[in-house]
């Protein structure tokens, strides 16, 4: 599939800030199943900083933006040729050992509810267990935008029974770790016209490490494994750790507002 991405994030500040520093993870992962045809990131007034690939295989690009400024835009435009790898991450160079991804964070901390959910899933071998856990999470948390917020934990979303892709991913990560499977949060893009559901084009899912197979993606929000409709950007322990854009404004005294527009289209159609 040939997917085109047009992603703009606009930050506005009620009173001008002195300067901004950002760290981006906005470049498609180098792996089987996605080939970048074109990819351009621009930041209004931004100076490119550090540029490297980290231990998780994510391409990191730093930016600094001199002020005073009241608004900046981060724009990502590109085209990626994708193929379906049945969710399996192959050809991805990374140096972090799988065991590292067993570590719990505040957002993925286990509680009794998650423990019970994880315990109910059963499967022959790690792969079947991972599928069962993804199904269990999909069944336990209904997709409902607005029910949760950026800081909702896995335990809270499960108790609520509703959430968005971030909550599904957090809950699945918590359950997988409870069953001894390394798991991580993945951020990326999703072309969602196919199923007609109104899922966010800026998407997130989870990867679970299956011995002998490697990392396998699971998207409980859509009850499937990532396929040719998905573009993978980067990973982390949780949503905060895997955030595609992180930034700090110096001399910020007023409120910051954020406006995000993402369009993922099938360029081949």
């Amino acid at each position, binding site marked *: 599939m040939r997917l085109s991405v047009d992603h703009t994030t606009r930050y506005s500040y009620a009173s001008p800030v002195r*300067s901004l*520093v*950002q*760290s981006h993870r906005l470049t498609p992962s180098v792996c089987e199943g996605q080939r970048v045809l074109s990819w351009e990131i621009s930041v209004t007034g931004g*100076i*490119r*900083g*550090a*540029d*490297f*690939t*980290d*231990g*998780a295989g994510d391409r*990191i690009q*730093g930016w*600094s933006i*001199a002020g005073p400024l009241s608004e900046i835009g981060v724009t990502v435009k590109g085209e990626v040729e994708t193929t379906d790898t049945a969710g399996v991450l192959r050809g991805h160079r990374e*140096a*972090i*050992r799988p*065991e*590292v991804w*067993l*570590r719990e964070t505040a957002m993925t901390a286990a509680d009794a509810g998650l423990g019970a959910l994880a315990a109910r899933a059963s499967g022959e071998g790690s792969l079947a267990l991972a599928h069962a856990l993804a199904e269990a999470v999909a069944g336990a948390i209904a997709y409902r935008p607005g029910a949760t917020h950026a800081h909702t934990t896995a335990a809270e979303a499960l108790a609520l029974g509703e959430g968005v892709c971030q909550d599904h991913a957090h809950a699945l990560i918590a359950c997988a770790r409870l069953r001894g499977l390394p798991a991580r949060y993945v951020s990326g893009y999703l072309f969602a016209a196919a199923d007609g559901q109104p899922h966010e084009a800026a998407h997130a899912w989870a990867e679970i490490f299956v011995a002998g197979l490697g990392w396998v993606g699971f998207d409980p929000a859509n009850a499937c494994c990532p396929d040719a409709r998905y573009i993978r950007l980067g990973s982390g*322990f949780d949503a*905060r750790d895997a955030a595609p854009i*992180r*930034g*700090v404004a*110096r001399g910020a005294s007023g409120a910051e507002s954020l406006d995000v527009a993402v369009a993922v289209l099938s360029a081949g159609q």
Partner: protein
Amino acid sequence: MDAAFDEMNGSGGGTRIPYARLEDWLAHMPRELRSLKQAEAEALFRRIGITFAVYGEGGDPDRLIPFDMFPRVFSGAEWARLDRGVRQRARALNAFLVDVYGRGEIIRAGRIPADIVCRNAAYEKAAVGFVPPRGVYSHIVGIDLVRTGPDEFFVLEDNCRTPSGVSYMLENREIMMRMFPALFRENRIQPVDSYAGLLRRTLASVAPLKCEGEPRIVILTPGPFNSAYYEHSFLADLMGLELVEGQDLFVDGEYVWERTTEGPKRVDVIYRRIDDAFLDPLCFRPDSTLGVPGLMDVYRSGGVSLCSAPGAGVADDKAVYTYVPEMIRFYLGEEPVLNNVPTWKCADASDLKYVLDNLADLVVKEVHGSGGYGMLVGPKASRAEVEAFRARLCADPANYIAQPTLALSTVPTFVDEGVAPRHVDLRPYCLVGERIELVPGALTRVALREGSLVVNSSQGGGVKDTWVLAE
């Protein structure tokens, strides 16, 4: 505990050689002179302003730590062995850090369990895949040692992040030389004042590849409210470096810059005295205002060096400590010169059996505990306490380690009644950069209360000048 080795008087066989000349000194020190000198020392410390808690113990930053004028003395031969042992350990700890943030050979070889490293809170995922200049993560390794006999030394713990207290090593010497110049003429005491120059050279030697010309080095402090702020400014003065706070630095493009009155200056090496968690809100704690946003990206792309490197703390973790002798064998192919305190891991069935059989003689600690909580000191516990602890231990053996109770050596110390033996420990500071450097000296902490083994300054500990005699 009652048969402690005294470093001056041995185990009753007369004065040991390194201390021979101090006998005379002591004999010619009447009580009045002693009080006078003690008051003079205190005034000097006050004037210099050296008033901070050692080893980040917190407490009142303006409190003076008691200085005991009776020096601790090592012969050249005694020190030679400590020197070899400390350097060996510093090399092995750095080799371990290169390995666990790289290929992980020691884990693959099954010499240390993956979980102890990878699931350790001090193991920093962001440090994986980047090798700092010269493969050095811990540039200042502080090794805490105790002695139990003429030739018996044990390592209590390693400090690979930013060990503090070296300013005491330097100031204690300075003050002793001012007060007792004759002692320094009579004894061939090796100097320690090269430390600052060596530290500066060590820091300069790990400048990033991108650095052109003379590297610009700064010391990054959390600020004056920090209990070790005195030491930060002391070292900055000695080395002629800028002492900066996070707000004095900023990231622009691929580099870190310092705001100065002459405009921004590029910074190449940061000797940081703030913890990993506070270094960069973009990478670690987002609420931290002590650090520099974007610093980690610059570091990981080779634009600036951080001393110690983020993630170095995994090498000085309590659970990792037990594997340091194994690291020495694995990376260096040598036998450890300095031993760990024998440690039984209760997770291991045969170790557990030994611990349960000898519970009344051992110290049992929680693997991740600190501050003496959840701990059993066998010889000091009642039978009921031992039995209660036995039940907790059996319920969760993996959570505990056990060690023998050590009879820490004593050194004569001035007390109200005269001179009496008091227990001591030792922290040498090993520098690792292009070369490995260790000045012949260390910080000696002394437990001023009779019989006490607790040398912490928050619990009645003091400090002593530590001499290494030339052969």
